[in-house]
């Protein structure tokens, strides 16, 4: 039925028809129904619905930003329901308690947490529905449930040819009580979990039909572009409202928390209106901040005692042997999601409707001032019951869309104008008004004796993302450093969280994105000082870290570590745990006029029991590109309290001609589950930098490599 609507009509129809319907249509993932009226009587819980034609709709409470949740969530449900993959479609959930992320107790997507958090919850949702269908069939046949089994969307009667489809049983199952407990499948019997089933979101992503936030169209909607102070923390002082209103198509100029919004019939008019504003800024207290000042401050901090996060043996006491000292530094980084920030809101007297590509739908506790639902209620002056949140497709997230500044802008603009408003950011807005991966510096002093490290002293200076506890650090600034895996008898790790006047946020793999670079390069320096092979040196220190060791050995073996390479190439290796997963990478690198070329990356991952190996491979490929882009080019410089880079000419992305061959090896594992969206990123920078050191003898300690 969906094919008879235009995209525009889907959205318009959906507005009155409710959240589930809108997004199902936007996603276009529903299979076409057969002739005859199909109803969906069996809705045993918030996560799935069974229709009379036997089709199953899974409701996903997580945000799809490319990582595959719109496929992984249905896989978990469908496996236990015992239904064929071709019968399964997916729709995006509304905001609500039923969809809170079990890992966090909020509705939000991040921390590579979906599979770990929902593994049991979603399987039980499928298994309970299956049990109800079995009970309905047993009642119809007048037999005990022990005489029934299920297969591919049917209940079968053992020892007979009788079968009833789930569609046939949907009405009866709907009247049964939901069982309290249920037995889950033995993993040996999995047909969908652990299999590379095709992604449900892909068909609409090759036709242009997938509905991203920026594609939302609502009747009567205007488009806003916002002028924000380029200096972080500054405010608009004066502007020429009349000049903006004189631009054809401009309807309103409104002052909102983040700046001055020009609200127009479309994006192009709004852009021209914003130019016409000629805003003069009150730049505030950060106007003199610069990358040079930031580097100097971090450098002075890493020389001063910080907050201790790890101590072993004699701590920092000097040890006999060969001592190596080094300082590493990384800059701020923008996320540069392919879809620029945007959101659409319609604030009415007694209801607020919000549409957006967001990673954070709801948090009644309000640690971040709430998710989109609570924010909409606060700005709209209504209760959260009077808020409808539609999560659209996200054109990339990477942590950026956890921060809802763009959502507040849409809500404030709609409230001020009384019309539905879509706020659209330009790429320049997006790069210059981010919540950046923090700039960070790390100092190390290590000592090796008899070919093995005897001392590891490390101090990091890195702004917080979320404030730490009183007297403590934001964990993210030292993650991967406070818990580095190598067995060394004397260890001291300390940190500082300076305030630098630049907004910071979660950036794919968060603290590990820079800390793995620091520690996995410095361990390579110690290997060199010890005269040891960097792979063997690491392996021999990992007896107490078996999962690190296994992926390290797998990557080294698959990469042919130690075998000859063509002239002018070298390998580098690195291993890191993040978000519960263990990833090792070997990079093969050559140098061309001082610019590294990465030819091949071999990835080994242990993430525990898996949902979809092809999605894991895709996330490893993606994580490698993300980390390699940052290692080669990534830098947001600060001058005059503002971001220097603005678009892809100055904030450079890896392109197809630079793509290495990425080979992914998933280590079979029944250990605790980890995530896959982020852990592919941390090891690539150190693997590449270690390869360059092996090739040239030059040790790069400051990113990006290419400047």
């Amino acid at each position, binding site marked *: 039925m969906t094919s008879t609507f*235009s*995209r*525009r009509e889907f959205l318009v129809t959906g507005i009155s028809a409710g959240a589930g319907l809108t997004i199902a249509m936007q996603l276009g993932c529903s299979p076409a129904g057969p002739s005859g009226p199909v109803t969906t009587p069996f809705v045993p819980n918030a996560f799935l619905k069974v229709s009379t034609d036997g089709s199953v709709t899974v409701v996903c409470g997580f945000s*799809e*930003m*490319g*990582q*595959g949740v719109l496929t992984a969530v249905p896989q978990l449900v469908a496996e236990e329901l015992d239904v064929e993959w071709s019968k399964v479609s997916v729709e995006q959930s509304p905001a609500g308690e039923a969809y809170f992320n079990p890992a966090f107790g909020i509705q939000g997507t991040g921390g590579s947490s979906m599979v770990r958090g929902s593994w049991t919850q979603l399987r039980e949702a499928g298994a309970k529905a299956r049990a109800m269908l079995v009970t309905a069939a047993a009642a119809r046949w007048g037999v005990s449930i022990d005489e029934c089994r299920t297969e591919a969307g049917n209940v079968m009667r053992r020892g007979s040819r009788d079968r009833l489809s789930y569609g046939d049983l949907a009405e009866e199952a709907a009247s049964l009580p939901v069982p309290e407990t249920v037995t889950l499948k033995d993993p040996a019997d999995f047909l969908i979990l652990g299999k590379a089933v*095709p*992604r449900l*979101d*892909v*068909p*609409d*992503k*090759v*036709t*242009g*039909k997938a*509905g*991203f936030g*920026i*594609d939302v*169209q609502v009747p009567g909607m205007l*488009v806003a572009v916002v002028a924000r102070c380029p200096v972080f923390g500054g405010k608009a002082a004066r502007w020429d409202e009349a000049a903006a209103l004189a631009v*054809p*198509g401009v309807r309103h100029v409104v002052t909102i928390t983040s700046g001055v919004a020009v609200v127009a019939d*479309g*994006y*192009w008019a709004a852009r021209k209106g914003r130019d016409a504003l000629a805003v003069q800024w009150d730049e505030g207290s950060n106007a003199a901040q610069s990358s040079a000042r930031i580097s100097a401050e971090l450098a002075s901090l890493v020389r001063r005692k910080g907050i201790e996060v790890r101590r072993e043996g004699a701590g920092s006491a000097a040890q006999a042997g060969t001592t190596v000292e080094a300082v590493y530094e990384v800059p701020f980084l923008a996320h*540069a*999601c*392919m*879809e*620029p920030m945007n959101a659409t809101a319609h604030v009415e007297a007694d209801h607020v409707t919000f549409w957006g590509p967001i990673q954070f739908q709801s948090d009644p506790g309000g640690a971040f001032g709430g998710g989109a639902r609570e924010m909409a209620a606060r700005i709209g002056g209504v209760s959260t019951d009077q808020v409808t949140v539609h999560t659209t*497709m*996200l*054109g*990339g997230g990477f942590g950026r869309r956890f921060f809802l500044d763009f959502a507040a802008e849409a809500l404030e603009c709609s409230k001020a104008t009384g019309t539905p408003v879509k706020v*659209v950011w330009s*790429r320049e807005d997006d790069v210059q008004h981010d919540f950046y991966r923090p700039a960070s510096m790390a100092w190390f002093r290590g000592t090796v004796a008899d070919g093995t490290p005897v001392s590891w002293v490390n101090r990091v200076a890195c702004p917080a993302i979320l404030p730490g506890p009183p007297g403590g650090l934001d964990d993210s600034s030292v993650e991967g450093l406070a818990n580095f895996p190598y067995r060394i008898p004397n260890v001291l790790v300390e940190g500082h969280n300076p305030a630098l006047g630049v907004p910071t946020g979660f950036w794919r793999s968060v603290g590990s994105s820079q800390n793995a670079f620091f520690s996995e390069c410095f361990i390579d320096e110690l290997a060199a000082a010890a005269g040891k092979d960097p792979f063997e040196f690491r392996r021999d220190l990992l007896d107490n870290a078996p999962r690190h060791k296994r992926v390290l050995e797998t990557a080294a073996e698959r990469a042919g570590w130690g075998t000859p390479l063509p002239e002018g190439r070298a390998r580098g290796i690195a291993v890191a745990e993040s978000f519960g997963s263990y990833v090792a990478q070997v990079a093969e690198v050559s140098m061309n006029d001082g610019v590294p070329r990465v030819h091949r990356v071999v990835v080994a991952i242990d993430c525990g029991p898996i949902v979809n190996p*092809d999605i894991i491979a*895709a996330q490893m*490929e*993606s*994580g*490698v*590109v*993300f980390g390699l*882009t940052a290692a080669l080019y990534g830098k947001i410089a600060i001058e005059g309290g503002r971001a220097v880079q603005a*678009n*892809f*000419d100055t904030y450079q*992305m*890896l*392109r*197809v*001609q630079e*793509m290495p061959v*990425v080979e992914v090896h998933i280590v079979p594992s029944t250990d605790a589950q980890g995530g896959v969206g982020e852990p592919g990123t941390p090891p690539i920078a150190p693997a590449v930098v270690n390869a360059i050191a092996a090739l040239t003898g030059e040790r790069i300690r400051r990113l990006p490599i290419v400047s």
Partner: protein
Amino acid sequence: MTTLRINGQTHTVDVPEDTPLLWVLRETLGMTGTKFGCGMALCGACTVHLDGEAVRSCILAVGGLTEDMEIRTIEGLSDDGSHPVQQAWIEEQVPQCGYCQSGQIMSAVALLEKNGNPSDSDIDAAMAGNICRCGTYQRIRRAIHKASGGAR
């Protein structure tokens, strides 16, 4: 008034002449498959075909377009994903977030219509203007080879 031929149909639009084709497609005509990524011909998200050539619609003012120029967008490839390049994209499971993929596919189709069996360096040259922040390049390369029927 500007008259445009898009996917074989004629549309007359009343927008300022400096309006980029991208925004006419997306906002005036509701054809949102073509995406905005940078507005400066740096990312390829807005790629469409103009008389068979891949062009960046974000810097193409509609005032410079005439009725005898044939514009093709992602919506004009097929409604159901049946175009061979779309099929190859599905088989290789290329998209992640998907936002860049309309532009990637339009660039790939333009390449393959000129060169039925592109080499890796042909692919590099034709696809270098299309950024994928999700890093799907390896699969894009495989899908182009698959669509070309090239053994690889």
